[in-house]
């Protein structure tokens, strides 16, 4: 028997079995794909929100519009990096979550859109270029361990520089956490004066300690490892509601209220659906529920105030410039790395 004959027989066998398997596989695919939604009823959302935030919103969006939402969940920076990599052929239509200063910093990935209710958004919390649409306002707050610290000892940003807290401040690495970066910039705004001196003093107060996850700030303060910490109001309120032993302080010398937002990815495949999504999350029905359901503050005037949170008007606010913060994002982080790392840094 020649080699060719053998090869022929083997090929025949392979083809035969492939034919037999092929038929059934084809049938199965077509049976399931009949239920799959058509392309114009789809939306791909990258979100860095927690499930309890995105889940009810996505569900309601789907039921109201009939659009199937495909979710990709991840960290803000991770998803933004992914968007940069996919810039040529974006998989995502919408980036949902992340501070608007982060979205601003990755502005190349997004395309501007003015949502239907843009006029109703708080002027301080909307993008003049329409690059992003705010979702919720998140004031930066200070927290302290309610058992270990008496209430009058921490009232403002400047109290953080007290030697009593040195090495006991819970602060997440601003390179990792966007909210921590906002906290750091807020600190700079609140202290005024020379930026470098403030950074240097704060580095001394931290005594070389930073946390690696924003959630650890709460855990560390609640557990008593740290006495005070810097975090977002929403996160802190949730932990208080969960029974953690922490208290909130809205700094008397003012704080920032940077919203987290949502933006449409450049060259999105489902652009119309993405616009619907932005209209939806900035719409009254979602914003109305923001406070009661998510411990977040709405970014627009709503007809029925929930009156659970301290009204924003009662919180001393700084004139925080989002675009300044995102423009100087890298510069601030570099300075911070320099002072925090001490002499070891170049």
């Amino acid at each position, binding site marked *: *028997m020649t080699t060719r004959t*053998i090869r022929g*027989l*083997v090929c025949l*066998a392979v083809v*035969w*079995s492939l034919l*037999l*398997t092929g038929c*059934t*596989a084809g049938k*199965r*695919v077509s*049976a*399931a*794909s009949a*239920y*799959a*939604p058509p392309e114009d009823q*789809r939306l791909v959302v990258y979100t860095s929100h927690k499930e309890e935030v995105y*889940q009810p919103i996505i*569900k*309601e969006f*789907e*039921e*109201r519009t009939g659009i*199937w*939402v*495909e979710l990709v969940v991840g960290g803000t920076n991770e998803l933004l990096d992914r968007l940069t990599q996919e810039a040529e052929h974006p998989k995502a239509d919408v980036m949902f979550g992340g501070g608007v200063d982060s979205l601003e910093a990755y502005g190349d990935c997004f395309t501007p859109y003015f949502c239907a209710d843009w006029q109703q958004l708080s002027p301080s919390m909307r993008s003049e270029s329409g690059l992003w649409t705010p979702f919720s306002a998140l004031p930066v707050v200070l927290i302290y361990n309610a058992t270990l610290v008496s209430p009058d000892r921490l009232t403002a940003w400047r109290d953080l520089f007290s030697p009593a807290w040195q090495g006991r401040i819970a602060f997440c690495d601003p390179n990792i956490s966007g909210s921590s970066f906002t906290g750091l910039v807020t600190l700079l705004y609140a202290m005024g004066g020379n930026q470098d001196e403030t950074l240097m003093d704060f580095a001394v107060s931290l005594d070389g300690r930073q946390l690696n996850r924003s959630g650890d700030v709460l855990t560390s303060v609640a557990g008593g490892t740290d006495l005070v910490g810097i975090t977002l109001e929403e996160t802190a309120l949730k932990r208080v509601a969960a029974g953690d032993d922490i208290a909130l302080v809205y700094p008397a010398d003012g704080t920032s209220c940077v919203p987290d937002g949502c933006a449409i990815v450049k060259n999105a495949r489902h652009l119309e659906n993405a616009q619907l999504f932005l209209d939806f999350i900035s719409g*009254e*029905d979602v914003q*109305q*529920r923001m406070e009661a359901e998510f411990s977040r503050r709405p970014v627009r005037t709503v007809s029925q105030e929930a009156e659970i949170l301290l009204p924003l008007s009662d919180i001393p606010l700084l004139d925080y410039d989002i675009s300044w913060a995102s423009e100087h994002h890298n510069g601030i982080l570099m300075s911070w790395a320099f002072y925090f790392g001490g002499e070891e840094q170049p």
Partner: protein
Amino acid sequence: MKLTRSFRTRLFVGFLLASLLPLLLCSAMLLQIFRLQMEAQADSESDVQLIHVTTALDGLYDGFRQTSLALKASPYVAPALAQGQTDSSMVYSELYSATEGSRSSARFDLYDREGIWRYSTPRSPLSPQLSTQWGILYAARQSDGLVFSQVDGGESSSAPLFQAAAHITTTHGQDAGYLVITMTRSNFHQLLDGTYSSQNDLLLLDRYWRPVYASVASLSDTLAPLLREKLLEGEALYGEGDVYAYGTAFQEEMGLYAILQRPQALTQSTRGLLTTVTVGSALVCVVISIFMGLRLSRQMFYPIERLHSAIGEVAHNNLDVYVPPYRDDELGQLAQRFNGMLVALKHNQEQLVENQRELNQAQIRMLQAQLNPHFLCNTLDTMKWISKINQVPQVALMSTNLADILRFCISPEEFVPLRREVEILQRYIEIQKIRLSGAFSFHAEIPQELEDCLVPKMILQPIVENAILHGLEGVEDGHIQVQAEKVGSCVLNIVVTDNGKGLPSDMTGAYAHRSRELSRGHLGLYNVDTILRKYYGEDFGLYLSTGSQGRGAVVSATLPLRREEEAEC
């Protein structure tokens, strides 16, 4: 032995292919057919179960729809919800009669237009207030009929999993309130248990493939997202090697997908078993192939081996070998032919030995003839001198001639120029002339160009002696002539002619092939003929014929024409 190895290997590979290929082909085909049949059966079973499930859901929907229609049409319910001042017992009575058929499969709540709970089939409300701007109430307001929505209720059996709602308006079209129907895990369990077989699991998904109910609660979290992802990616819900297969059905009104998870018809273990059987069979094939390969090659190789050793024996010059034919097949015939060849070879060799022996005898005779020749030569010389002293010239001449002949005879050369042969012949003739008192004449005629041809020594003398002794006996005026001629380019013909009594008729023709006994009295001719044939082959030798006028004899010797310092022609 290279032959055996390659031969055996080839046989083995051949057997292996011939057995393994059909086996594997068969196994693959059987596996496929088996799988297809099992799958078709499992598919149809699963379809039947799914039909049961959708039938149950259809029934449920009909109940809900009738309830909602009855409550919407009720003259008490809408006003009660809108104004909140009607007798509540009438509302309850309406509620209970409307929910008669489906009360066991769900709870029914009535909310007013603010979303505040007012009435329900159980005592306490599911939740005291619902948002009208969100979720099911919002959806109900947008629709005329029933709307359905999945609820994340948790894993307990009383957890609400699925809600339906309908908007209730007054006769004037005013917003009055909402009917909310809630199904718990136990409701679903009660409804659907028994519609599918126990080894399968059921998963209900909403319109967007989010989990509503699962017969095993954990499937909601693990399986549902996976299936949704596959659906959106456009992939098949399950593949060849997956543990489970999934059947799907859709209840349109409620927007519920029923997914029936069943173990794959061809489980991993069955697949493993079939593979084991196939591999086992393949191994048996390999073993049989090796066995057959060895056996056949041995069967073929045994005769070859015997032939091989027989050839070895022959190479060592043992011709008394016999290879038994063993079997009457191609190899047997080969052995027989080998035997025949051997017999022929043996015969040839015996012939050769016989020839050699004859040659040896001739040489021995020659050696005997050379016995102490110097003594004879010296004696002849002495005789020559004594006869000269005593004035007997004939004796002197004879002894001189005899001594020359004798020297010629004992000289070591085997071949001599024809010129020299003729000179010695002259000596002999001189002796014979003295003996026979000159009763004959002799004439030699050798062309110049042939004088230096090489001939075996002493071949002319016996022929001439034969002519003198037998031909010229009693003949007066006898004459002997020796002539040499060239025939063609490379044959020398030496002819001795006499005018004597001639030959007996039975002696004419080629001298060859006469036995020694027959040549008695003509031993000289016999010897010459033998020498010529032994030296030059059967084509050469003596030829005898009668002279031209019927008198005398002509003896011609043919031999290859060779010269000194010249290769064979």
